[in-house]
């Protein structure tokens, strides 16, 4: 099992004391599996994604990644997890503005070892980015930026790809396009994919759908 | 603070009062005060009276050059005591102070000197008479025959004076009252000097002859707090008679006047407040001040109704605390010449 989450809890400080966002979530994800995480605003789906991706720390419960308990990892350990094992694609601000497209795509792979330049070309071609490699993020369209983020994630060959509304900022046609490319590439690398979305269309393309409500999986 | 202004504040009570320096008005602070019915002791009284706060030897002369050009000269030595005593050395509290001027119809040259007593730089000795400050001097075997010298950056003069008449005493036998409150000074004059000498002016030396008038006055509190300045006239009429008259201008707009009529023989008649009247006829802008330079002067008791006109309207004494002093011509009921001094015009 790639991911085992047990009784995960997390709360944030609020105006009237702590607000519980996750109230004991259990989740299992196998390698290569694709999962959609849906739920209302504030149901905790982004938080769950963040905890699994080592972007934030849980209050209680355990997360096992590839058999390893990552719940208690310190900053450095979690950073290593993000570098090597997980790829994250956000809705926006995914890219490093000071690096050009090619450097952005290669960035995570280089952080965790090295970048295969041939693969970079292949990915860029597959995502229609080969004409934009020397451009800077600020001159790209939203769809192009998300494609760069996808390319970057897949360059690093993570075991798990986490995407938080990856097409939320895109028009319908572009969104469908980007999602299709992402699914294709993920299946190619054999990575598992967990997508946070409130789009039924997106969720429908995943192998499994999980619904989060009031901090618990339904 | 300009030192000279301070000196003048001490020396020139009228001006001091005009500037709000009222300390001298009433109190005499250990100094002797003039008393009525004075008995003078000459030649000693020609000398200095260190017990009194202020004193002066004040010579003016109307002169004429070979071409008939009119000139006027002034030679004044003031004494101002900081304390009623005199000492040897720098500690002497007697301050000496002098003004000299030569007035021509076109020009007015002024010089000023200041010195401390006690070190020989300035002083007055009665017999043989000698009054001096720096190189300026008024000296002779007695008070009737004097040689007067002065110099400045633009002029110098040396004049011989010969008295041709008696001393004249103002007020009541030399006790001259200066205000309704009774402030007074001792005041006598020698108005009968004949004068002969040489003026050295920027254009060259000029031999001159004429008449001089020497005032002697000393006091400790000669003015009232309410007096802001004075207009003082010494006029010599063609017939030989002379008139000394002054009016003290008071802050309420009224004046206090006094006058002495001096007959050609030296007989004097004193006139109380109100008999002598002076009215400004014409004003002149000089050194930024407005100063009357033509006057109507009246002494009805003696039938005097004359116009007094400045020889040079710009006879401004540009010294530390400035005033106007210069020769005048007289026309009207009487003709003649004289000197006019005006202080306290701001």
């Amino acid at each position, binding site marked *: 099992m790639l991911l085992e989450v047990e009784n995960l809890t997390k709360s944030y400080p609020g105006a009237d004391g702590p607000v519980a966002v996750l109230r004991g979530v259990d989740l299992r994800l196998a390698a290569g599996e694709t999962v959609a995480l849906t739920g209302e605003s504030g149901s905790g789906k982004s938080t769950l994604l963040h905890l699994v991706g080592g*972007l934030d720390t849980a209050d209680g419960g355990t997360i096992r990644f590839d058999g390893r308990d990552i719940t208690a990892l310190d900053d450095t350990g979690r950073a290593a997890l993000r570098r090597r094992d997980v790829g994250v694609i956000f809705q926006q601000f995914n890219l490093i503005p000071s690096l050009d497209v090619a450097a952005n795509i290669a960035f995570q792979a280089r952080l965790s070892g090295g970048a295969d330049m041939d693969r970079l070309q292949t990915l860029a071609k597959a995502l229609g980015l080969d004409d934009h490699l020397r451009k800077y993020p600020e001159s790209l369209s939203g769809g192009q930026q998300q494609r760069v983020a996808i390319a970057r994630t897949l360059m690093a060959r993570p075991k798990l790809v986490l995407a938080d509304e990856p097409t939320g900022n895109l028009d319908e046609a572009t969104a469908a396009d980007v999602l299709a490319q992402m699914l294709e590439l993920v299946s190619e690398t054999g990575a598992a994919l967990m997508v946070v979305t409130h789009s039924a269309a997106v969720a429908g393309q995943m192998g499994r759908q999980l619904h989060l409500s009031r901090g618990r999986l339904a | 603070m300009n030192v000279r202004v301070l000196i003048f504040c001490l020396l020139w009570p009228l001006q001091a009062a005009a500037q709000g320096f009222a300390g001298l008005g009433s109190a005499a602070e250990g100094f002797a005060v003039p008393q009525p019915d004075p008995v003078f002791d000459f030649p000693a009284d020609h000398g200095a009276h260190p017990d009194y706060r202020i004193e002066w030897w004040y010579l003016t002369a109307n002169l004429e050059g070979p071409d008939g050009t009119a000139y006027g000269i002034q030679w004044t030595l003031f004494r101002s005591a900081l304390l009623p005593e005199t000492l040897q050395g720098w500690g002497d509290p007697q301050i000496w102070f002098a003004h000299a001027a030569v007035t021509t119809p076109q020009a007015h040259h002024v010089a000023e000197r200041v010195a401390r007593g006690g070190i020989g*730089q300035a002083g007055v000795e009665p017999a043989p008479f000698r009054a001096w400050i720096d*190189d300026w001097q008024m000296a002779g075997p007695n008070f009737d025959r004097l040689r007067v010298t002065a110099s400045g950056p633009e002029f110098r003069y040396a004049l011989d004076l010969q008295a041709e008449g008696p001393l004249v005493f103002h007020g009541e036998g030399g006790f001259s009252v200066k205000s309704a409150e009774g402030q007074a000074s001792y005041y006598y004059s020698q108005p009968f000097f004949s004068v002969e000498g040489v003026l050295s002016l920027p254009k060259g030396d000029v031999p001159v002859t004429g008449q001089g008038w020497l005032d002697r006055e000393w006091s400790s509190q000669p003015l009232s707090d309410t007096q802001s300045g004075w207009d003082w006239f010494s006029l010599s009429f063609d017939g030989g008679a002379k008139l000394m008259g002054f009016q003290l201008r008071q802050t309420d707009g009224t004046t206090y006047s006094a006058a002495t009529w001096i007959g050609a023989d030296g007989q004097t008649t004193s006139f109380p407040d109100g008999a002598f009247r002076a009215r400004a006829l014409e004003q002149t802008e000089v050194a930024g001040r407005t100063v009357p330079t033509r006057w109507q002067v009246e002494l009805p008791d003696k039938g005097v109704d004359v116009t007094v006109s400045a020889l040079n309207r710009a006879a401004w004494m540009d010294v530390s605390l400035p005033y106007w002093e210069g020769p005048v011509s007289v026309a009207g009921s009487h003709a003649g010449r004289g000197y006019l001094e005006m202080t306290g015009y701001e």
Partner: protein
Amino acid sequence: MTGAGFSALWSHWRRNPLQLFTLVAGLALATALWSGVQAINAEARASYDAAAQTLGEGRFDHLLPRAGETVGQDRYVALRRSGWQVSPVLEGRVFLPDNSSVRVLGIDPLTTPGGLSPVRMEAVGGLAGFLTEASLFADAETAARVDGHLEGQVVVDPSAAPGVVITDIGTAQALLGQSGRISRMIVAELQPIGLPPLDRIAPDLIRRPAQEVSDVGRLTDSFHLNLTAFGFLSFAVGIFIVHGAIGLAFEQRRGMVRTLRALGMPLGRLVWLMVAELFVLALLAGALGVVLGYLIAGFLLPDVAATLRGLYGADVAGSVRLRPSWWASGFAIALIGTGVAAAGALWQIARMPLLASARPRAWVMARGQGAWRLGALAGLLLLAALGFALWGSGLAAGFALLACLLTGAALALPLILRAVLRLAEGRARSAVWQWFWADTRQQLPSLTLALMALLLAIAANVGVSTMVSSFRLTFVGFLDQRLAPELFITADTPEQAAALEGFLASRAREVLPVNSVETQVAGLPTELFGARVGLTYRENWQFLAQGPDPWDRVGAGQAVIINEQLARRAALWVGDRIAVGPDLSLPIAGIVADYGNPIGQAVVAEAVFARLFPDQAATRFGLRSDDPAALRRALIDDFGLPEGNIVDQAQIKAFSLEVFDRTFTVTAALNVLTLAVAGFAILMSLLTLAALRVPQLAPAWALGLTRAALGRLELRRAVSLAVLTTVLALPLGLALAWVLLAVVNVEAFGWELPMYLFPLDYARLALFALLAAVLAALWPAIRLARTPPGDLLKVFANER
């Protein structure tokens, strides 16, 4: 409408207190350094003026005794009685129980020329008090020292020169035990006509003509010029900060400006409001700056005062007073600085079309795009600097050269840094470093102003330190040259001098009379020396330029040696002839450097001097001896020369060195202050950027860099930029030093100083600069390292 507009504009500052603080603090710091340095200058100058006014020094001719220290006051009376308008002065030192001394200056206020009144007599009831009571006037420091030790009423008078007690001449005679004596007389400018000549009245007096500028003034000007240059550079550094703050604030308010205009506020009114707002801020900052400057001056002045006192013998009060003129100049400079800094921003607002983009971050980007224009301007300025260096003449050209050089270099800085960073990025091996350099390059436009400030600060420090240190080294060398004699002695009278020469003939290796007159050579005031040419001169004097056998020819009375000042001012050089006396003209055999002296000097043989000035007998001598201590004892014990008449060369040298060490204290303090200002600029830039940085850093964090690593990288970024800037500032500072030493100094003071390099000092300065950068970057970096992950995640959050 105005009120509503103002509150809208003001709301920006309320929401961005850090920006407001940056603006006000930057302007206040700039004003503070400027007015602090000006305050030190003004205070020192006021002290000289007080001294000069008290003594009538410079403005008036003086009559001095031909022999001895004093003359009877009968001389004074005799001169006055002959018409001479002179005023007596008696001066002397009085020793206090603690062995320190004060100078007592006795004057006669009645005769000082032109109503010259050195003290406020109102304090003692006017002139009457001054003349009749023994009143002693002194500044607070001196008054406290003498109170209770001198007979008389001590009155504190801030206008009195430091270390001087002014009193009536009669009181001074009593205090100094000089009854009936005076030291000298001041000659009034206006004298009556027909004045008898001086030698008929007082042949025992000589007349010393007025000098246009006092010696002390000329010498200390050099020091003040340094300080002024420093103050100006510091101010320039501050203005960079202000410019940055104003530019950012205005850009961020573009949206507000658009809204206000769309709502119907006329553009003119809006610009006027912004000007008014800046005016208020400038006044506030100016006031703060003046007070700060006052504190800086107060902190530094004791050292400055000690420096000047030691260096040039000028007494400067060791405390500052807040003078109205500082307020005026502080406010003026704050307003001018704000105006300069805001002009561009206001111009842009005034030209902005109503529907222009209101994106504030456009500003940061636009800076990069306008780079080529800045580059062109920098090139032009540097070319102009080169032009001034090659063909300019005069002090103004020297300062124009400085201005062009510094501005050009500052403008070129971002271009050079960009190129270096691009190079580094290209060579980076790892992703992190590639990103690091790329990101640094991207940050550059926002940090440019702060880095320019740092560049100028370091360059100024390098320049001024080099100048001061070069001056020291040269001056010490010069002292070694001129102070070759082991002992210097002074005789009280020419008779004693003759006896001394006889006494010394067998005891000293060489006896060198120091005999000089002040005269005119080539139409310039010159000190003419008669030298006894011997081994000492031959071995120790070094020439800037010389003909063959200079000392042989001078010794034979066939030539003259002049100093550099005279040579430059009179445009003379070796081989030219100059008239040293009415009938004597000699060729110049050599030119010597002369750093202790503002006026020209010429050296002829003793015999020539004696022929020209037969009455001028030497009373000072330099003595060469292998056993100076024994010679000293012999002079005191056997000859009976008072100990005070003998000066040890070692003493003078030690003293001079001590003086320079004090100069360094001041320079070092100013170094730290300017660097602190530059550090502040960096800190404020980083803090302002911090909010913008989070979205730029969040992706890197999400991809696997720890917050601590990011913080370290931020720190390294600041240090790398500071290092690069420092490396660039070094040559600029050396160029600045060269301009100060070889151009400005020659134009201002007539001597060129050789330039020395001080690598250790530069290393220390660089270290300071790095320290400033590290301190400035530390807090933002720590803040970054401690940013909660939640804050970073918010960047990516879908719902906010």
